[in-house]
């Protein structure tokens, strides 16, 4: 008998076509808004038009005059049921429906529940709210001013607009490093507010059945089990009587991690009306009220030796969290994993301080396609690195190479205290430089100059922490960040696998089965993958922070190994030898001394139900909870080549080369899809995508006409390369990948533009690097800041 071909059975390394595609290409996906329940009502939200105002009164009587309006919910009604405020995932509180005052434009004020969505909208328009305007606070400078209005006057003891003041690293040692430096390089940067804006907005259908006491909620969530726990705490319902179902999700990117007021309001509406209540957010609601990312200011300093060695790094940041600290962060780390900055460089000492502030803007700071503030970390890092190389007069590639952690220096303790595990950083960089033709670039640049065009090349190299995370350090609301898998092998050798993760396009239904195929030799086509229903899936922390493969993926390998251990006993029984005499090849146990004498995994499965040895528990199923020993640390090198037309400031990406080392690739096709998607979001943030606010706190960018996300036309082509350094502690050697390109990519584009205009002396243009900003920089020879004017002064 010949051994199975792993790729043919859809195991590891197979670019297996996606299972989920079969329904999506037929229009048979089942997203929340596709679900219709008998007797279902529809909910719409009335949002605040003002950024900061006291609510004098709310008159809902005219809404009730509209035929078909069944219920109007206000903050007072929520408060009467102890639901006026809810806890956030970061130990803050958030108003469900405003009672005292509104704190950002778009805040939820009231909800209308009606027979159809059009009537519900009519109802929303009929509500009259009397507001007393208060001064808006739209940036940290205003928030930290001595006479700033107190935004969170609801919080006992809150005297100012500071959410937290957090530091990490060694301030004194870093001070000494700067005293010894030959050169100190400084950068001041703003990472603008951006919105993940998945194509499907947020929504829910709450269905409370009074006869059974059971609450079922279909919900656009990346983390159904966390939501079940949160709903249990917020609504004081017993956890076993709450079922959260996350059906097909039309993209998440961090936007669908927090618990939003709309979800909670739909639940109360269903309890009060005793009918299912559907809430589907419109795009404006999504863009002005849910889960912003970024919005952070940096004062960065690097202590440098003349020969290019980095002696120390100091980062002082201010993060704008909006009105509520509502994003999920591991509870030990207030500013997420921002201190993963500079992890790929061997730096003796570093210090970081971040102050989080409240403003009258929508809650911000979600991990938009990144692992808890890692995007900001790597952007700041790579912009600072380029500036430092320029300040030293060194080649930007050589400066990086000189400071990289060496291949033989793992595990490596970073200056901020992380432990990185593996990598071949210089190899990735060299591969990228070769691919883009770095050696020939100066000649190209000269030729372009003759044509009146400015050519620039930008590099971004980084390792980032993915897969939160080990229980010693990572928890959300006290729940450790493990994940889980449950595998049931049926008697014919087919199987169903469930995990605590919840994909939103990552292809879990395809790749998870490949891990089972790799471990057990059961063809991937014989493994059904199910996620997202808390009544059936084992407890897990969900899908974000590129944690699915590092954590749930590992749990799948471990549960498969439990199955294999039992199958080995069954094989020994069937082969009538002792377990020690049985060997394994993919899909089959055999007698070591007689390799032709063997049984397949499918035969073992049948025996588990029909021919088990005396005393053995029947069945072939198991579950595994995986607590990762560490984060995984993929490495990436992104290199962009751009051309600027100095007459307009317009820049085009001529080439974008990506070298990713995410360890062992389960499904190369899907990995490459993740990288290309990530690079596009990186390009988006570098080139066009940002949300800003005017002085009154009005959100500028409240729809897709004003908030630019790239189309196929603007998006450049990508050239992908790979290096494989297996993760030493992951059971199948894999590392996270879903977010690397979004995290590392923006700096490559911005560095390329800055490289192209280096001769002007301009050190920085803040993102997005819009043509008018480039034009202005070329015209004036000065840096262009995206920060509010008051923050620019020295």
């Amino acid at each position, binding site marked *: 008998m010949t051994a199975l071909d792993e790729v043919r059975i859809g195991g590891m390394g197979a*670019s297996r*076509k*996606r299972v*989920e*595609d*079969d*329904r*999506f*290409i*037929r*229009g*048979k*996906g089942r*997203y929340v*808004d*596709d679900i*219709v329940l*008998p*007797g279902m009502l529809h909910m719409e939200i009335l949002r605040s038009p003002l950024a900061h105002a006291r609510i004098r009164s709310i008159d809902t009587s005219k809404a009730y005059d509209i*035929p*078909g309006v069944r219920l109007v919910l206000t903050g007072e009604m929520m408060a009467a049921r102890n639901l006026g405020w809810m806890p956030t995932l970061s130990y803050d509180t958030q108003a469900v429906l405003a009672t005292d005052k509104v704190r950002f434009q778009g805040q939820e004020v009231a909800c209308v529940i009606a*027979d*159809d*969505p*059009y009537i519900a909208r009519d109802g929303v328009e009929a509500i009259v709210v009397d507001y007393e305007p208060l001064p808006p606070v739209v940036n940290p400078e205003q928030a930290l001013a001595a006479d700033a209005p107190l935004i969170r006057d609801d919080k006992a003891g809150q005297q100012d607009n500071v959410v937290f003041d957090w530091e990490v690293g060694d301030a004194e040692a870093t001070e000494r490093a700067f005293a010894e430096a030959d050169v100190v390089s400084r950068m001041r940067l703003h990472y603008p507010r951006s919105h*993940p804006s*998945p*194509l*499907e*907005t947020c929504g829910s259908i709450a269905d409370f059945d009074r006869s059974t006491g059971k609450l079922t909620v279909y919900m656009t969530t990346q983390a159904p089990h966390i939501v079940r726990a949160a709903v249990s705490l917020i609504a004081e319902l017993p956890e076993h009587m709450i079922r959260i179902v996350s059906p*097909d*999700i*039309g*993209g998440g990117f961090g936007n669908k991690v927090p618990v939003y007021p709309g979800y909670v309001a739909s639940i109360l509406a269903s309890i009060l009306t005793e009918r299912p209540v559907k809430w589907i957010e*419109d*795009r404006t609601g999504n863009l002005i009220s849910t889960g912003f990312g970024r919005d952070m200011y940096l004062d960065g300093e690097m202590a440098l030796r003349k020969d290019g060695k980095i002696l120390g790094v100091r980062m002082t940041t201010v993060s704008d969290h909006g009105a509520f600290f509502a994003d999920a962060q591991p509870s030990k780390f207030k500013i997420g994993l921002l201190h993963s900055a500079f992890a790929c460089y061997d730096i003796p000492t570093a210090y970081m301080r971040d102050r989080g502030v409240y403003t009258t803007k929508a809650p911000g700071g979600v991990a938009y396609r990144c692992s808890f503030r890692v995007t900001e970390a790597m952007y700041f890092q790579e912009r600072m690195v380029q500036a430092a190389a320029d300040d030293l007069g060194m080649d930007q590639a050589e400066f990086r190479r000189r400071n990289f952690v060496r291949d033989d220096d793992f595990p490596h303790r970073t200056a901020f205290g992380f432990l990185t595990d593996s990598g071949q950083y210089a190899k990735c960089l060299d591969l990228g430089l070769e691919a883009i033709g770095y050696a020939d670039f100066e000649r190209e640049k000269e030729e372009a100059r003759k044509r009146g065009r400015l050519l620039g090349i930008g590099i971004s190299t980084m390792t980032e922490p993915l897969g939160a995370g080990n229980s010693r350090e990572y928890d959300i609301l006290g729940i450790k960040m493990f994940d889980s898998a449950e595998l049931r092998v049926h008697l014919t050798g087919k199987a169903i696998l469930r995990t605590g993760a919840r994909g*939103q*396009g*990552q*292809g879990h239904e395809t790749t998870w089965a490949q891990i089972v195929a790799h471990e057990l030799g059961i063809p991937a086509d014989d493994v059904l993958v199910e996620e997202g229903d808390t009544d059936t899936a084992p407890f897990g922390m969900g899908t974000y922070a590129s944690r699915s493969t590092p954590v749930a993926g590992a749990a799948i390998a471990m549960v498969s190994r439990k199955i294999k251990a039992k199958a080995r006993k069954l094989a020994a029984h069937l082969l009538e030898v002792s377990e020690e005499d049985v060997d394994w090849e993919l899909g089959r146990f055999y007698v070591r001394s007689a390799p032709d004498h063997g049984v397949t995994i499918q035969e073992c499965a049948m025996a588990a139900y029909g021919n088990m040895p005396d005393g053995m528990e029947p069945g072939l199923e198991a579950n595994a909870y995986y607590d990762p020993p560490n984060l995984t640390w993929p490495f990436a090198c992104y290199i962009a080549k751009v051309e600027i037309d100095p007459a307009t400031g317009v820049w085009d990406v001529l080439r974008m080369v990506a070298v990713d080392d995410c360890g062992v690739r389960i499904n*190369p*096709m*899907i990995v*490459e*899809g993740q990288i*290309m*998607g*990530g690079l*596009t979001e990186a390009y988006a943030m570098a080139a066009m995508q940002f949300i800003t606010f005017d002085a009154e706190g009005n959100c500028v960018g409240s*729809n*897709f*006409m004003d908030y630019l*996300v790239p*189309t*196929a*036309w603007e*998006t450049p*082509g*990508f050239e*992908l390369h790979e290096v494989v350094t297996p993760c030493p502690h992951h059971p199948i050697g894999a590392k996270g990948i879903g977010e690397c390109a979004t995290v590392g990519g923006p700096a490559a584009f911005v560095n390329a533009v800055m490289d192209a205009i280096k001769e002007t002396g301009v050190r920085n243009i803040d993102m997005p690097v819009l043509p008018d900003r480039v034009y202005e920089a070329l015209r004036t020879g000065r840096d262009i800041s995206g920060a509010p004017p008051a923050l620019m002064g020295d």
Partner: protein
Amino acid sequence: MTSLFEEITGDADSSVPVRRVTITVNGQPRTADVEPRLLLAHLLRQGLRLTGTHTGCDTTNCGACTVLLDGAPVKSCTVLAVQADGHDVTTVEGLGTPGELDPIQEGFKQEHGLQCGFCTPGMMLTTKALLEENPDPTEDEVRWALGGNLCRCTGYQNIVKSVLWAAAKRRGEVPPAEGSTS
């Protein structure tokens, strides 16, 4: 009030004007009494339960709701149902047959042209309109044609490949080798 909103059980407000429309949807004539303000996307989704047409932005920007109106791609979130009266509408459910996929559907699966799947129906219908008019488009022509359809997952590169794969298949040329993704 729209009579096809089956979940409505209460009394209709007689002051709400209703108009009867007949629209041929995926080859079948469908008649409904609709409020003049009802959007075509909502008639398709809620009324006819053709939920493959998605709504993503409400402002004609994202293209998730793209359907073909007499063969031309339109954003059904900004077309009124009454405007479609007497016309032909093709939705994703009208692509292919139960037994056989349309080459466009095949192309999207072969070239990993989708991830979350939310933009996919709109992308495929825009593709259909493109390929009917231009059976052998260049990459640039594909990118230009898809300019009204947003995707937040894929970065478009594989969508472009999917379209080119489908074009080759429709022309009867051997499509790119299975498994090719880069």
